[in-house]
């Protein structure tokens, strides 16, 4: 876990790819994330995150179908690697552990 260096936005993108399964290509990822984060995203930010993670070995990709509305250009479909899934679950566990560790009392005290 030490040197994975997964940024917050990258983590979102990675989770989105994992969630979308077969449909995970640039525009779909963007659409999904925009809905969930309730904000506009640029193609550049999504793409650079994808390429970076591909370089780090979190993602692999392959060309998909070409459609009319894409001007005859093929999609690139992204898949998470097992390494990515491991890192993601690790992060989730760490987070969960940390959430567990927050004392109830402190929580309650804050409520007062």
């Amino acid at each position: 876990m030490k040197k994975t260096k997964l940024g917050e936005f990258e983590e979102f993108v990675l989770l989105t790819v994992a969630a979308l399964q077969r449909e995970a290509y640039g525009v779909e990822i963007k659409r999904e994330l925009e809905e969930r984060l309730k904000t506009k995203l640029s193609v550049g930010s999504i793409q650079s995150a994808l390429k970076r993670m591909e370089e780090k070995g979190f993602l692999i990709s392959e060309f998909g179908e070409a459609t009319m509305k894409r001007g005859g250009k093929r999609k690139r479909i992204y898949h998470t690697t097992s390494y990515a899934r491991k890192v993601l679950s690790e992060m989730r566990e760490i987070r969960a552990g940390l959430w567990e560790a927050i004392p109830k009392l402190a929580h309650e005290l804050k409520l007062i």
Partner: protein
Amino acid sequence: MIQSNDTDSYRHQPPKWPLRLLRFFLKKEYLEEIEGDMEEIFRENLQQHSLKIASRIYTWDILKLFRPILLKNIRQTSTLIPFAMLENYFKIAWRNLIKKTAYSVINILGLALGIACCFLIFMFVQDELSYDNYHTKRDRIYRVIHGSKSVDSSTGKSYPFWVWGNGPIGPALTAEFPEIDKVVQFSGRADILLSKEDKVYQEDGIFFMDSTAFDVFTWELLRGDPKTALAAPYSIVLTETTARKYFGNEDPLGKLLKAGQSAGRSREGHFTVTGIMKDVPSNSHFRFNVLASMSTFKITRPEVFEDWGYVDFYTYFLVNEKFDRAAFEKKIPDFIARNRREPDSEYTFGIEPLKEVYLRTEAERQPGETGSLPNIYVFSIIGVFILAIAIINFMNLSTARSMERAKEVAIRKSIGAYRSSLIFQFLGESFIIVLMAMLVALILVALAMPSMEDFTDKVFMIQDLVNWQTIPVLLGGLLVISIVAGSYPALALSGFGTVTVLKGITKSNMGGANLRKALVIFQFSLSIALIAGTIIVYMQMNHVLDKELGFDKEHILVLDYNYDGAVNEKSEALRIEMEANPAILSAAFSRSVPGSYFPNAYTVLQSGDGEMQGLGQPIFQVGMDFITHFGLKLVAGRSYSRDFPSDSSKALVINEAAARQYGYTNPADVIGKKFSQWGREGEVIGVVKDFNYISLHRTIEPLTLPLAPYESRYLSLKIKSDDIARTIEDVSAIWSKLVPHRPFLYSFLDEDFNRQYKSDFIFRKLFTTFSCLAIFIACLGLLGLATYTAQQRTKEIGIRKVLGADVRNIVALLSKDFIKLVIVSILIATPISWYYMNQWLEGFAYRMEIKAWIFGLAGLAAVVIAVFTISFQSLRSARMNPVSSLRSE
């Protein structure tokens, strides 16, 4: 999504230019995906927004795609590997330079010196070749050279052409040849006393010139109208420097300058300044300070403008496109016949294009100085020699060291280096060294510039060497030198067999020992030839300077008063006053002194068979005491004397050559023969021994010395050698007492006379300097080579010492090889330099004999220099403790 809407959106296309931008900058492998994404989003946006807004979103999104990770990157493309290799080459080259500092310094310094010499010579040659190039119409400018169809009976050759000639040819050319646009004529060089209030100078370098001057020549007129500046009589155009001399910061235009007479050209008067021109560029074949209008000359002496026999004009002309030189030359005889009425005239003329008048002319009586094409060749050759010697050093040292690099090459090869990349590596290394040498050379040139200017009297600018036109040449030279210098190491080293080298089998011929020997021989042949050349040049110059000229030239003070009639009136008084001073031995007046200007005259003299024969020859018009004063020896008859009043109009003294010219082998026979010359008739009364009144480049020509004291221009004084400064003061005092209106201008005869050898002196200085440099560079190389061999043989020397060899044996052993090479070089250099130096000596009428000992001396010098250079190293290795040398490894 509604289908119709969808198809509708295909009618619109996203804007083109952002896409093009994207295609240009984005990594190729990402292009298809991202382009597709962009288009899909654009289509979607079209359903909600107008085309305009969708396009804007599209453009904006594309601009936001410019992120480092998505863009093309040179570092990460396929050039990565060669780049790393280059880095390695640089690293190795640098380490090699640092590790062997001595070699590197020898290499770079030697090469830098060589290149610097080349640069300096290049600048000198370029300056010589640039003469008159500033005239924009230079390709269309020609000049007339005047000659005679008759042949010199004594030599069988035709008489040399003169640039200086008659006047009427100018208007005649304009009138008869439509292909000639403009003719510009100017007088011989005049000296006029110009004064403005208290500023009085004898201004030399004045030409009376036609008003067409500025149409033909490209001289920039700063003030005044080029069309009319030289039109009216007594108008004058000054150069900037001259204007400042008389007028300071005043505006000179329209002001008056008081002028003395110019003998035979203009009377005293006032000149109006009608123009100021830029100073004449230093690379002009004739230069001047002042131009006076030709019409001044014309109103003073209109008759000479009609006289085909009167010589005082230079004629240049500008032609148009219709001009054809060959066709023009064919028309010359007819032209002469039409214009020159005397049927028996031997007169003819030729033409020379402007681009030939500085270096390629053979005509005499030039308006200015001329250059020497052979000298240019000599210097260019020396430049190439020096560079060759320096390059050979470089090659020698690299081949010598190649054995050290052999292992590196073998390892590189076994790892998989191509031969081409090894060649590239070594050429690259030599390129780096040559580049460094070139930078050092530029610094050296900048440092040497002032002394070079002193040497040659020329003005050099570093901009002449480094400018936009020469930078490609310099870079080309850089490449050529590095390829030539680096080619042997590159080709030989890269050809080594990997296995042989790694196994440790190295034969001496692998290091190119034979080639190295050949190169050393070549180098030393050049050096010895240059040493011999230097000795010969020196000896010849001393021969010229020390030669008995036949007249006294030491301690003679010459006062120049420029034919001033008022001075000539008082000549007797001046002479008596001067001779009253004990420091002045004698005084004499004359129109010419040896080394100065003299006219030519047509003399009719009774030849041996009694017939009158007319011939032309130089003439020295002299005063009463000239012959005794200059110590001329009489071989027959007597000199002029105050005891014979008729001498002033009816007597003539000639020299031996003149007597021979008229067919008298015994000078005594010509005494008493009748002559007529320049309107004078009488008898020859004396013959003087030939004396060298012109430079020793030429033989002594026939000369007549008529007595004409009132035509004099110079007063020469023979003075005692002690306290010359005091004597000059006394002379000056007498001068200003008797002729106060005339500035006191003096010079020393020997200095004036030796000025004729100015270009010879420049030649000698440059030749010597460059030869010394060449020898120095060759020695640098030898030193490097000797050091290297000594190192190679460290073990051998150690063993020899252990077995009982002493220092002498070792030194002899190490020097022997080199000495052999030097001796071979002597054998090669001797005939070559003998041949070329003989050619050079042809240029002198009086030349030294080339003796064999010169080459012996040159060879000896080379041997001594070589031994000295080598002994430095061989002594060191000979005295090394064998223990330390044998223990190594």
